[in-house]
C-alpha cells in the first residue's frame, strides 16, 4: 500500500512538472505550436495531475505504513483504466498535432520557395528586357541599339543631304551665271537690231539715189532692195532669237527657283527629322536610365525578399524542433504509462515485479534525461567545421 501511495505521488508530481515545463517552453514553440500543441498537451497533463491527486490516498506515514497501520484506500480499477485511456488518447492527439503542424509548415515552405523563385524569375526577366536579350532569335537587338543605329544612319543621310544642298546652291549660282550670259546675248541682239535698222536706212537711201539716177541706177536699185530685204530678215531673226532667249531665261529663272526651293526643303525636312530623332534618343536614354534605376530597385527588393524568405525558412524549422520536443514529451508519457503498467496489481501478482520495475525505471531515467532540443530561441544555430 505504501508503494501505491508513493507511486501516485510520483506520478502526480511528474505530470505537474511536465506540464509546467511544456508551458515554459512556449516561446520556442512559436505561434502555431502555442495555439495547437501547448494547450492540448498542458491541459491533458494538468487533467492527469488532478486525476492522480483526486485519487490520492489519505495522509500516510511511512512508519505507520511499515507498522501495518496504513489507512490507504486502493485506487479503483476503473480510475486506472481511465488514466491509461487518457494517456493513449493524448498520444493520438499529440500525433495529430504533429501532423497538422508538419502539413502547415510544408505548405508554408512551398509557398515561400515559390515566392522566392518567382521573384528571382521576374528579376531575370526584367534584366533580360533591359539588356534586350528577349528575342526570338540571335538577331534580336536591344531598343537602344536600334535607335543608335537609326541615329547613325540618319546622321549619314543628313551629311549626304547637306552635300546635295551645297551642290544645289552651286547649281543655282550656275543658273544665275547662265542668266547673266543670256542678258549679254540680248544686248548683242540689240546691237544687231540697231545695225539692221541702219542697214535698212542705208538701203532705203540707196534706192532713192538709184531712182534719181534713172536708168543707170536701176541695177543699183535692185541691189539696194535686196539689202533692205536682208536687213528685214536679219531683224526678224534677231527678234526670234530674242524671244527664244527670253523664254530660256525665264525657264532658267524658274529652274533656279525650283532648285533653291528643293535644296531648302530637303535641308529643313532632314534637319527636323534629325532633331526629332535626337529628341527621341534623349527620351530613350532617360527611359533607359529609369529602367536601370527600376531594375536596381527591383534587385534590391528581391534581395530583401530573399533575406525575408531566408528568415522564414529558418523560423519554419520550429516545426522540426517542436516535433522532436513533442516526441520527447510523448516518450515521457509512454514512460509513465509503462511504469503504471509495471506497478499495476496484475504485475504485482507476478514474481520479481519490483526488480523488473526498478530496472525499467533506470532505463527510462537514462533515455529521458537527454532532451534532443537544447535551443531556447530561433536564432541561427552554430556551425563547426572539423
Amino acid at each position, binding site marked *: 500500500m505504501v508503494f501505491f501511495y508513493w507511486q501516485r505521488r510520483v506520478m502526480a508530481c511528474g505530470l505537474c512538472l511536465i506540464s509546467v515545463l511544456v508551458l515554459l517552453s512556449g516561446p520556442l514553440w512559436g505561434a502555431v505550436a502555442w495555439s495547437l500543441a501547448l494547450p492540448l498537451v498542458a491541459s491533458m497533463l494538468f487533467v492527469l495531475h488532478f486525476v492522480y491527486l483526486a485519487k490520492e490516498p489519505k495522509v500516510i506515514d511511512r512508519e505507520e505504513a511499515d507498522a501495518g497501520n496504513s489507512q490507504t484506500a486502493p485506487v479503483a480499477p476503473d480510475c486506472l483504466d481511465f488514466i491509461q485511456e487518457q494517456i493513449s488518447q493524448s498520444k493520438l492527439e499529440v500525433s495529430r498535432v504533429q501532423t497538422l503542424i508538419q502539413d502547415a509548415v510544408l505548405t508554408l515552405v512551398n509557398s515561400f520557395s515559390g515566392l522566392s523563385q518567382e521573384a528571382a524569375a521576374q528579376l531575370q526577366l526584367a534584366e533580360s528586357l533591359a539588356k534586350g536579350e528577349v528575342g526570338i532569335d540571335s538577331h534580336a537587338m536591344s531598343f537602344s541599339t536600334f535607335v543608335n543605329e537609326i541615329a547613325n544612319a540618319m546622321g549619314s543621310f543628313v551629311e549626304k543631304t547637306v552635300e546635295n544642298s551645297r551642290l544645289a546652291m552651286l547649281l543655282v549660282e550656275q543658273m544665275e551665271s547662265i542668266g547673266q550670259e543670256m542678258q549679254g546675248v540680248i544686248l548683242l541682239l540689240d546691237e544687231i537690231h540697231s545695225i539692221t535698222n541702219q542697214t535698212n536706212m542705208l538701203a532705203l537711201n540707196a534706192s532713192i539715189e538709184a531712182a534719181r539716177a534713172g536708168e543707170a541706177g536701176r541695177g543699183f536699185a535692185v541691189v539696194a532692195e535686196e539689202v533692205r530685204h536682208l536687213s528685214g530678215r536679219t531683224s526678224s531673226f534677231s527678234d526670234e532669237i530674242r524671244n527664244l532667249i527670253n523664254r530660256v531665261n525665264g525657264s532658267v529663272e524658274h529652274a533656279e527657283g525650283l532648285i533653291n526651293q528643293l535644296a531648302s526643303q530637303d535641308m529643313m525636312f532632314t534637319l527636323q527629322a534629325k532633331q526629332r530623332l535626337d529628341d527621341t534618343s534623349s527620351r530613350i536614354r532617360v527611359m533607359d536610365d529609369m529602367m536601370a534605376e527600376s531594375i536596381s530597385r527591383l534587385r534590391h527588393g528581391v534581395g530583401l525578399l530573399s533575406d525575408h524568405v531566408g528568415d522564414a525558412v529558418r523560423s519554419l524549422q520550429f516545426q522540426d524542433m517542436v516535433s522532436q520536443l513533442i516526441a520527447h514529451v510523448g516518450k515521457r508519457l509512454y514512460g509513465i504509462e509503462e511504469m503504471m503498467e509495471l506497478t499495476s496489481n496484475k504485475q504485482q501478482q507476478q514474481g520479481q515485479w519490483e526488480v523488473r520495475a526498478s530496472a525499467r525505471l533506470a532505463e527510462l531515467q537514462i533515455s529521458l534525461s537527454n532532451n534532443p532540443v*537544447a535551443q531556447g530561441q530561433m536564432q*541561427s544555430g552554430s556551425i563547426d567545421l572539423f
Partner: protein
Amino acid sequence: MPKKVLTVDDSASIRQMVTFTLKSAGYEVVEAVDGNGGLARAQADSFDLILTDQNMPGMDGLNLIRALRKLPAYGTTPILMLTTESSDQMKSLGRAAGATGWLVKPFDPQKLLDVVKRLVG
C-alpha cells in the same frame, strides 16, 4: 555538371528547406528519410556532399556516417551533421565518427550555402 548533394532527414519540412536552399544555388539534391535510406541512396549513386540529421528512426546520423566512411567512395566526401543536438559531447562523437562539420538547427539558408560552397565549390 551540377554538384550532387544527399540530404538525410526524417523531417519532410527540413528536407524541403535544404532542397530549396541548395537547388536555388544550382545544386542537384537527392532526399532520404532515414539513415538506412540514406546509406542505400549513397551506395546506389555518387554524391559530392552529404547532409544528415542525427535523431532519426532506424539508423541515426552518427551510425550513418560511420557506415559511409567504411565505403571507399565516401572516404573523403564531406559529410555534414545538421541536427538540433548541440552538446560538445555529441559534436565529439560526430568528429570521431568522421563528420566534416556540425551544423545546429535552425540553419540559416545563406550560411548553409556558404558552408556547402566552401566544401564542394
